Every structure is written in structure tokens, then in C-alpha cells.
């Protein structure tokens, strides 16, 4: 999608994941999702909670297996990675940052151990102690300075932002190609968010790491993303360059999201209030567009048929029969 000549690091082809709930009903967490992540690219997966973002992350990390479709890393199907050494090799190249920095660090391990242990597992250093200079360099890189002050700190001695920096250092420790960041700033103070996002950008610049940045916050997606994918109820509904998607959203759901972002330019204008009724799961899980029950421009067709992708711009595509730029629906 971007003008990279390299093959994509990771691709999902028509991936679906269905869970069985206790009562025998099926929950379609992810439906027919296709996406690629190219080297050095920051792809943002945007959606509300329950849209299947985290399941997508788990599918990529291999902790869930797809019900249908193929997740492949550099052309190799993840489902066929079975041996211990092959799994280790995959872990070495694809890492993850978790949402909650209070839960993702073991409270009994020092910062040095937490960051050094993955290096040791993957034989990048002979031992944690003998890799100390590399660990210190990494701590400095994620902004924990002076690094020697932090090396022996335990998580409870750190703030949320510092913990998340440690978690990022741990993910970067093995020099991965791709890091899946599952809402890495949503639990942090607003004042700390920009710093963490800046770190992600720096990691891309200096180490060439690609990111899948999962968020429900369009503003941060615009800030760091090259591309934005919008997800709703397990389906992707719009995809395109970050600026373009935010400036000219075509899918009614994306438009609702963009309008929900506080915007000083629209101050004073009456806000269109989007009511989200508590929807019965089964109602939206038909064969049609999942956004149909809420959509202001829905037609009878939308209820039965899921629209195919249509390009609205070069690289900007949308899955909607009635897609049109925002201004056309904006009645105010």
C-alpha cells in the first residue's frame, strides 16, 4: 500500500475468528479481515471496544488460531509454525506491548531483568548481567535516564508512564520487525501519551520497526499512523492513509467516529448526537453490514448483503454501498 518495494512483514487474508459462547451461540469476533503491514509502517487499527481489535492482535501473536483464513509472516503461514525453534524465531521478530502497564510487568522482577530476559532467551546476550550495557542503552533509548538508576528498580517504584517505557524496552529488546501495540497509551495520563507515541515514532526511525497500533482514539491514530484501518463489530469498514481517512471519511461509522473527536473548529455548532442503542448481538450478526442498524444512510440492501471494498481514492477504500464524503451527510 505504501511505496515500499519490500514484501509485507505480515498479512491477514480473509481471517475470521469465531468463539463459542457457553450457551451454544457463536460470537464472530473477527470476520473476513484482510490487511498487510509493510516494513517500517505504522498501521492503526481503530475501533470501539468489542470491535475485535484485541482478537486481531491475538491472532497475529499466535495466541489464537483463526477459524478461517490465513495469517502469514513474511509469506509463511503462522498455523504451520509448530516447532519450538520456529516459534522462538517468530517471537524474536514479532513482539507485543500491552495496554495495562500495571499488569504487564511482573512486580517481583527488576527493570533490568524484565528487559534483559528476552535478550537472554533469544541468545542476543550471554546472560542478563553480561548484557547490562545493552540493557542500559535500551533504557536510555526509551527515555529512562539515567538508566543505571532504573536498572534495579521494581515496578512498584515506577509511575505508569515509566512502566510503559519499560514494557516498550522489553518489546524492542529482541530487535523485532513488528510490534503489536494494544492500546499502549489508553491507561496513561493524557500528559504522558505524547511521550509514549513519540517513542514509537523514534523506534520506527532508528530501528525500522513496524507497528500495528491498536486504539479507539482517532486523534492518536492520526498523530502516529501512516495508514488507518477502521473496524466495527469484527469487520473492517474503511482503510486508507491516516490524514486522508480523517479528513475525508467515507464510511458512515468512520464519520461518526471523526465527529465524536472534540474539534475546536466546530465549537459553537450544535453537535449531532449519535445514540448507540444496546444492540442484541444476534441482530447485527446477519449477513449484512454490521453498522446497518445504526446507519443514517442505510438501505434495504445493507441488511442482507455485506458490501465489497470500493476505492474512493487511490489507496483509500471503503466497504459501504452508500459511501460519500462527510459533507454530504452533514445536515447541520
Amino acid at each position, binding site marked *: 500500500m505504501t511505496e515500499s518495494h519490500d514484501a509485507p512483514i505480515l498479512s491477514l487474508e480473509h481471517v475470521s475468528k469465531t468463539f463459542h459462547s457457553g450457551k451454544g451461540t457463536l460470537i464472530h469476533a473477527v470476520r473476513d479481515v484482510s490487511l498487510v503491514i509493510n516494513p517500517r509502517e505504522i498501521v492503526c487499527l481503530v475501533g470501539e471496544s468489542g470491535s475485535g481489535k484485541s482478537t486481531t492482535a491475538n491472532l497475529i501473536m499466535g495466541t489464537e488460531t483463526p477459524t478461517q483464513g490465513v495469517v502469514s509472516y513474511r509469506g509463511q503461514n503462522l498455523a504451520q509454525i509448530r516447532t519450538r525453534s520456529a516459534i522462538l524465531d517468530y*517471537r524474536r521478530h514479532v513482539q507485543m506491548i500491552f495496554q*495495562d502497564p500495571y499488569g*504487564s510487568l511482573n512486580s517481583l522482577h*527488576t527493570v533490568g531483568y524484565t528487559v534483559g530476559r528476552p535478550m537472554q532467551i533469544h541468545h542476543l546476550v550471554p546472560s542478563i548481567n553480561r548484557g547490562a550495557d545493552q540493557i542500559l542503552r535500551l533504557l536510555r533509548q526509551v527515555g529512562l535516564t*539515567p538508566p543505571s538508576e532504573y*536498572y534495579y528498580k521494581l515496578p512498584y517504584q515506577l509511575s505508569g508512564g515509566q512502566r510503559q517505557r519499560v514494557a516498550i524496552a522489553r518489546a524492542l529488546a529482541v530487535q523485532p520487525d513488528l510490534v503489536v501495540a494494544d492500546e499502549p497509551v489508553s491507561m496513561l495520563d493524557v500528559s504522558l501519551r505524547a511521550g509514549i507515541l513519540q517513542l514509537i515514532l523514534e523506534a520506527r526511525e532508528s530501528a525500522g520497526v513496524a507497528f500495528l497500533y491498536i486504539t479507539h482514539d482517532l486523534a492518536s491514530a492520526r498523530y502516529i499512523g501512516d495508514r488507518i484501518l477502521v473496524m466495527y463489530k469484527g469487520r473492517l469498514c474503511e482503510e486508507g492513509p491516516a490524514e486522508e481517512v480523517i479528513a475525508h471519511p467515507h464510511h458512515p461509522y468512520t464519520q461518526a467516529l471523526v465527529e465524536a473527536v472534540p474539534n475546536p473548529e466546530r465549537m459553537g455548532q450544535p453537535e449531532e448526537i449519535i445514540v448507540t442503542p444496546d444492540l442484541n448481538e444476534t441482530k447485527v450478526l446477519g449477513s449484512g453490514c454490521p453498522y446497518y442498524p445504526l446507519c443514517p444512510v442505510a438501505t434495504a440492501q445493507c441488511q442482507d448483503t455485506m458490501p465489497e471494498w470500493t476505492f474512493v481514492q487511490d489507496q483509500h477504500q471503503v466497504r459501504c454501498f452508500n459511501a460519500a464524503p462527510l459533507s454530504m451527510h452533514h445536515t447541520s
Partner: protein
Amino acid sequence: MTETTDIPGNDLELLRTMRSRNNQSWHAFIRNRTGMTGMLIFLLFVALAILAPWIAPGNPSAITMNILIPPNSHYLLGTTAEGQSVLMQTIWGTRSTLLVGLSAGALATLLSIIIGVGGAYSGGLVDDVATLFSNIFIVIPGIPLMIVLTTYLHHAGVGAMILVIAFTGWPFGARVLRSQTLSLRSRDFVRAARLSGEGTWGVVRRELFPNMLSLIIANLLGTIMYAIGAEVSLQFLGLGNINTVSWGTMLYWASNYQALLNGAWWWIIPPGVCIGLIGGALALVNRSIDEISNPQLAMSGRSKKRRLRRKLA
């Protein structure tokens, strides 16, 4: 700290000075007054048990004509109705009580770990079977079962006694460890470790066990106390070998000779006090281990205030 430069060597040097400041938990335990008090009392009993032949040489069961003598300068704790020295019996009795208590406690805890942690970490059918077993054993009342088993084994020796107590003492710990494992297993840091390439055994050893250590030790200490209590109860009921010397058999004979009616308080109090002291000592150690394994707890309460006061002074 000092100003830093971009030379990594400087950081390494600073790190070396920090390393010496980093306290190992062992040092923390030694400095913990509560824990050390308990440990000293416990070690005192261990020393008594080991050194019994040198501290109180002779046969503790030897019968003399000096019957039911109150404590005096010769018999520091008086004598029994068969003229045996209560002091000597108390010292020698430590051996059997500690041996049974420690081994049965350790064995029961091992069973709890294998069934509780193993079941919960494997999940699925293994967990279901393990849970079923522990539930069945929890509802079977321990003491009556032990009585039935020891009666069946007919004046059980030390080995049989250990097995019986361990066999009835594990299910509660297994349940506690199981629920702790279940809660830890799904935590993000365990997932993170797995995603960074840690294998199953590595996750258990490096992520789960350190977090469960205080619970395992608390469980061990609790089971040891339970085992000591169970051993004393069984001996008191005359279900063990009544001819061995232990705190339980002392109480058995004291009750048989109606020591209380005869006013022979010195025969009953020493074993009772010893049982209480060991129980208290284990509880103190338990508390300090809790403090050390949870660094936040160590800084709370009195110790924090004390540190603050020292800082202000």
C-alpha cells in the same frame, strides 16, 4: 544521582555501585525483627531435637521411684507418675514431634503444589479431576479419617503417621494454590513472558513461582502447624506408639494417670507451652515472609513509620 554522559561505560560503573545497594531478600529476612524472633525460637527447638542426647543424656522413659515430684533443683520440671523427668521427656519429645510435623507438612505441601498448581496450569480435564479430588478430600473430616486410618494401621509407627497426616492435610492448600495459579496464569505479565519466548517451565519457574512463593511458604508453615497438632492429637488419643516419647504421648500418659486431678500441673504445661511456642514461631516467620515477598507491604505500617521517624531525626 550524578550527572550522566553518553558513555555507556559510565553507566556500567554506576550500575556496579547500585548493585551493592540492591538488597537480596535473604538480607531483608535477617533484618526483619519479627521473622528473626520466630526463626530463633524455631531453631531453638530444632537444636533441642538434634542435641537431645547431649543436653539430656540417658533414657527419658527410665522409670524411677521419684513419683510426681513437683519442680525442684534436681528435677527442674518435676517428674511423672512413673518417676520420669518431665524436662527430659519434653526435650526428647521434640524429636518425634518435629520429625513428624516437618516431614508431614512438607509432604502435604508438595501434594498441594502438584495437584493444585499442576491442575490449574494444565487446565481442562486434568484440572477437573484434580479439583474433584481436592473437593472430596476437603469435605472428609480430617481428624476422624486420621483416627480410622491409624487404628487400621494399628499403633502406627512414625512413617505411617507421616503418611496419614500428609494424606489428609493437602486439599485445602491445593485449593488455595489452584486459585492463585488460575489468577496469575491469565495475567498480562505471564502472557508477556510467553510472548517473549519463555517456555512453559520457564514461565512456571520464573514468573508464577516467585509470585506464589509467599503463599507456598505460608501454606507450608500452616501445614507444619497442622501436622504437629494432628500428631499430638493422635498420640494423645493413644493411636500412635504410646511407648515412644513425644509431647502427645506425654499428654496421653498425663491424662491416663489423671495428672490434673493429682495436681501435677508440671506434667501438662511443658508440652503444651512447647506446642504453643512452635505454633507462634511459625506464625511470626510466616508474617515476615509475607512482608518480604510483597515489597509494598514491607513499606507499610510500622516499619514505614519507623523509617520515616529515623529520617526526620
